[in-house]
């Protein structure tokens, strides 16, 4: 007749000792090692406290209908310019050339956020004029909502110049967000909700492209129009206007932010506990060996002894 395990149960053995003994000291050391060393291991292996995370969001972008156009019309440095700012237009005097502009913002996937701006500009030219370079500023209202509410006014800058006079410039690009520092994880971030170009200023320095771009680039949060492949078409027919076709897409952005307190704690907790489990198991074995084999003197109390309480 073969024997088999019909039933089994673990037996609990208590080991008793008084306070001032080696066993107590051992217990304290083991507890410290068990709970503190995982913290050190998790910290030293980097990435314990999370300081920067990312999320994805499509911004709510609206074209602000503020435009500033400068076009060089000769190789000697003659230019024509136009803007949507009345003060600047008054200052330009004879260099003012009013183009015809058409703008359309399109929501292609019908999610309530505009995805594409189509900006078309036709600049009439006199017979002796040719376009050699184009500079264009467009301003946008840019909003993010998912983590912190970001409201800002931003800029897109198109510049192209060529030694050959052109008939048309086509630009198709993305309005990308550029962050120098991560955003906060909550709250309202409207530090940059100020006009990029101060249209109410009567001073010429307010419209100096150099000043505008320099003060804009000082911001921590900017947008930049990335257009890797501008197309400059040459061969303008006499009497036909110079055409500027711009398509600007508002793509999904990966935005980095500084996580809040509980998010930091949550990630640290996961790392700590997963290392702690290993240490718990190891030191459990160590303790069992020490007490079972009476390496340190204690009084074992088997479970069979009635414990009336």
């Amino acid at each position: 007749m073969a024997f088999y395990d019909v039933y089994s149960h673990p037996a609990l053995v208590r080991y008793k000792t008084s306070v001032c003994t080696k066993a107590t000291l051992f217990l304290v050391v083991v507890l410290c090692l068990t709970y503190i060393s995982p913290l050190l291991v998790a910290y030293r292996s980097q990435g314990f406290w999370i300081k920067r995370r990312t999320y994805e969001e499509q911004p709510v972008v609206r074209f602000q209908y503020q435009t500033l156009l400068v076009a060089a019309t000769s190789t000697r440095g003659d230019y024509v310019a136009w803007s949507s700012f009345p003060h600047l237009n008054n200052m330009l005097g004879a260099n003012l050339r009013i183009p015809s502009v058409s703008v359309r913002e399109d929501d292609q996937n019908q999610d309530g956020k505009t995805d594409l701006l189509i900006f078309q500009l036709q600049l009439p030219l006199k017979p002796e004029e040719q376009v050699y370079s184009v500079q264009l500023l467009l301003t946008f209202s840019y909003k993010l909502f998912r983590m912190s509410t970001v409201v800002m006014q931003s800029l897109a800058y198109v510049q192209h110049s060529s030694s050959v006079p052109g008939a048309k410039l086509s630009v198709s690009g993305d309005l990308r967000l550029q962050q120098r520092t991560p955003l906060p994880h909550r709250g309202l971030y409207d530090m940059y909700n100020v006009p990029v170009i101060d249209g109410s200023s009567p001073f010429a320095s307010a419209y100096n492209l150099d000043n505008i771009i320099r003060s804009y680039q000082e911001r921590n949060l900017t947008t930049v129009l990335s257009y890797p492949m501008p197309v400059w078409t040459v061969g303008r027919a006499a009497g036909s206007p110079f055409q500027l076709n711009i398509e600007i897409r508002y793509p999904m952005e990966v935005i980095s932010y500084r996580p809040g307190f509980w998010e930091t704690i949550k990630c640290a907790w996961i790392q700590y506990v997963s290392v702690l489990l290993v240490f718990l198991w190891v030191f459990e074995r160590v303790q069992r060996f020490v007490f079972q084999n009476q390496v340190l003197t204690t009084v074992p109390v088997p479970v069979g002894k009635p414990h009336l309480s």
Partner: protein
Amino acid sequence: MSNTSDLLTLPPTDFDSPIPTTPRYSRTEEPIQPTLPAEPLPVSGRLLTPVTKVGSLCPCDKHKDVCDINCCCDRACSEEVALFTGCSVDTVSGKKQLCSNDVATYSLESRIDGYSELQSSVRKETNYDVFCIQSQNRVDGLSHPSPALPTDSNFDSLFKEFTSFIFGSEENGGPVAPAEHQALSGYQWGDVMVTAGESGQRGMFWLPAPCVTADCVDTSPAAFLKDQSSRCSRRVVLKQDCGSLLALKMDTYTDIRVFAGKTQDAALVPVEVASVILQSVDGTQTELMISGGENLNPVLLNPTVCANVVLKVAYVTKYNPAGEIVNVTVSLVLGFVREAALSLEQEFHITFFQEDGEEAAIHCSGNPGYVVGLPLVSGTRTAEYPLPAWTLDFPHLDLQTAQDLSLTVVVTGIARSVDPRDTVSLLHSAEDQDCLQGPHRRSPVLFGLDSVSGCTLRLKDAANCSLVLEVLLDALRGPNHANFVASFGNSPLDYPLDWIPIESNFNPVEAQSCSIPLSLHLQIEWTKYGLLMNPQAQIVSIKEVIRTNTTSLDMLSGGSSILSIRSSVAFVPVSAAALPGYRATPTINAKLPFDFFFPFV
């Protein structure tokens, strides 16, 4: 437009808010009219209800009551169908998400005589997707929400909601009104200064400035209390413009009368001419004694040169604490324009000084520490005996003349120029690049900016060694060579311990037979002084290193017969850098990294 009238008779839609039961006028506001029933605006009418029947939908029907070619579902094409060759739209289906939806199909069959015949049918199609919609009880679930109907009462709010940015939405359209705050008689910071024209019409004080390009824009106003300096170019065609272009004429900048304040009855302050400097063709400047009566208008001397053209204009405006302009003086530089120059560069400055401001004459380069980008303060040591009495009753220094003539203020010990840019300077490279051709343009050494510049020396000019040595030293060090530099930006002149001597390694006595300086290098050591939050820059030592040639010049030039002479300046910070983290470590020195308790502390 024909069916607008009958559309108007339709009952109000359910989009209208229940205005009659809950009046939303506040108590303070007068009910202007008896509550208008929220009628739709006449032209808007009731919005059409969407057509959902597949059989009556026709996406290619673009012309009403006219047959669209190859549009098989167009009801106006009963006769033309025979001429069609194909259907531009052959199926029209309902909502795809429904489990069974209606599909209308259109196809053409050719008859025996060559004409086409339309076959159309509407049938039910079953959707075999697991997640299809069996029945749809939310009407607006798959369509756009109906827009609110514009009425008299909600039009403004709807307009505000949907038109965020539009063309022509500038708040400040048109030029600014010169007088906005009539309560104040004087100007405030940034205000446009008002001028009076010949016949009393009000204008603005213009200060030409570059705008979107480097070209001068004449109609840019000057702002009160905003010191401005601008440099812009102007294209001139000499034959036409020399006598006629207003921007070249001196009178344009001097015949101005400014209103002392913003009010209508403010006194008129004429612009006074403080000095006129004539610049010759080669750049030397002489001051013109203004006696009146000379004609300083631009003159075409010969077809290629135009004389008496305004090159530089500097206004100095004095104001009193009430914001009223006390006087305005202008200094001008007149010169020549040659035909060869395509465009002319003009410089415009305006500075503001408070009346009775004694400090106005002397500029500091920081208070106390140097500010990056401001010129070093330098001076020369004079004899240290008590000064004669003329310094005590020093005449009230006219700033502009003082700046132009570079007068020096002499107090015990150190003397310095009142012009902040007349200080330790570097050679500024010029077009001809020749070290021996003076006068050289110089650029002041600005605190914190390392810079390098130079000129060239042709070996055939270097025959007379001792002469070349002197000319080169003069060119490298500058005409009025200072030997002391202030350790702080505001070091007082009567405190010589604050002034650091410029050490030099160059001793002209021991200079050998033919050793000429090849480079001049200024090494300036500075340190940060004071609090970590607000450090002040202090210059601790300044050393002039002149390197002379040790071998023959021919060897150095490598046979090219041209030597390059360099002048440079370097600022060396000698202060210890601030450390990240806690400057004073906490008392529990547990050797933990500083961000160990990152989110807690």
